[in-house]
């Protein structure tokens, strides 16, 4: 048996949120960036890459440092970057947040590489944006809600998205 070195409330809150960030918004940003790349929408590629960099930084900070609460959207990028100083993924996150002058293909590659590494650290959720992943993702959300309920914490995902127990 391995001890989880953080109290149950903080573990459930932080891990569920980190997973939700990369499982929902980041999935949707990845979909956006591929659509934009293939349609030649370079401005959308740049904008979405920023969002991916910021969301990955926040998810990492929450998962790795058990940082809570998550600040307002305008402040969370700088908040996460500061606390990730020294982490190997801090610089890749900052470069995406700052904005990269590079061809769309190169930007998409960097986003793919970053998100793959973040998935390895935070964990992965079935892709809620696809027919195959929709119900498995909701089932996983339900499992997290049960744990969050058990420790008296609110869930990051809408309660009415999950199936009744």
């Amino acid at each position, binding site marked *: 048996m391995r001890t989880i070195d953080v109290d149950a409330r903080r573990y459930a809150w932080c891990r569920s949120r980190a997973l939700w960030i990369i499982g929902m*918004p980041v999935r949707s940003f990845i*979909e956006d960036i591929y659509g934009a790349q*293939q349609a030649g929408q370079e*401005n959308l590629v740049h904008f979405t890459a920023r969002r991916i960099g910021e969301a990955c930084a926040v998810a990492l900070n929450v998962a790795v440092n058990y940082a809570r*609460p998550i600040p307002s*959207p*305008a*402040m969370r990028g700088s908040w996460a970057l500061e606390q990730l100083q020294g982490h190997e993924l801090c610089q890749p996150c900052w470069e995406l947040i700052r904005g990269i002058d590079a061809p769309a293909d190169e930007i998409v590659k960097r986003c793919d590489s970053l998100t793959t590494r973040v998935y390895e650290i935070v964990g992965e959720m079935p892709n809620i944006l696809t027919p195959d992943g929709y119900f498995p993702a909701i089932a996983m959300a339900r499992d997290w809600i049960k744990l969050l309920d058990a420790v008296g914490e609110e869930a990051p995902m809408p309660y009415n998205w999950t199936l009744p127990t």
Partner: protein
Amino acid sequence: MAKNTKAIKDLGQCVERFHHGVSLEQILGEVEYLRDEGDTVIAGGSLVYGFGNHLSDLDLVITGPTTIESSRVPIEHFIGSLRVDVWKLALGLVEDSFDRAERALADDQALLGSFGDMEHDDELKLLHRIAFGIVVDGDGIESQGRDYCTVASALVVREYIERMRTSALLAQLALRAGRAVAAVVNARLTVEDALNAAVAYQGLPFSGGKWLGERLANQASDLAPVYEPFRQLPETPHQEATQFVQGVLATCVEMWGLDLGIDALVSSANWTNADLRVAEIGADRLLLSPGFGALWSLDEKEIKIWHQLVSAGTRKTDAIWDLSACDAEALSMCLCLHEHGLVDLRWTKGVVIDDLRPSLDAGAMI
């Protein structure tokens, strides 16, 4: 709003081209089960407004005067490679949203975030789907004596101008507090907020801030040069933040004629503290958030500032601190607390559109 045959045909071709033969008829068949008698189906979003791509979803609103059940949560459908999100709403709820929008626009109270936050913009997009969407099936809907497009556009202008004001204040406070990355991030948001407001001011439909760059490239190209200097953040924020923030502020003031100087802004802003308190344990002083089960240690200087803040709580509760009553150190500490998600920024007044003095850069009148 009634059927526009050409717009329906264009949308049908767009969907068929992007989604390998999926037709509007097929889509209508899939969502038929959601329709009550008299319901109209309205399509909106990026595919309808002409800047979507083959991975864009299609947004539908099903509404009517005798709609039985409503849900604010979109119901997802997958048809071939196309995802269709459906909002099923009684027309009364739609009208309620427009009523609320008109009241908010006529009021000088801040409306920031009331119709969707920075992450989702949910209600703003919904109102634009109704106003600028196309009727793909049904008899259309009768507005109750209002111009949906004017209200929806004005609402986005007002929301984004108030966001611009917030971003401008945070950029300047962060600069003063030595938080260079927060300063430049918020400065870029300031100019993006100003430009999103300008795009809506030109009467273009809104489908979320993420499309700003594409709008500037294709539909509002007169505004593109305004954005270019600020699209990328400085490489070394600690050295370049001041210049970057000042450049953004000058640009936005020129665009909208709103005083974005820190002294003007702090007069109508305050910090709200939900549950922070200081716990004294022997000689130690800990900042405690019971709600988040979180603790921070404070040094003597920070404790002194904290006590000043609490004792200067000038409103009904010591949990609301006027920014104008804060000295530089207190402002910096509050900014730091805000950056940690521990205090919120609130406005005592909104920005009424009629009080703005937009330059030509802001575009044509809506």
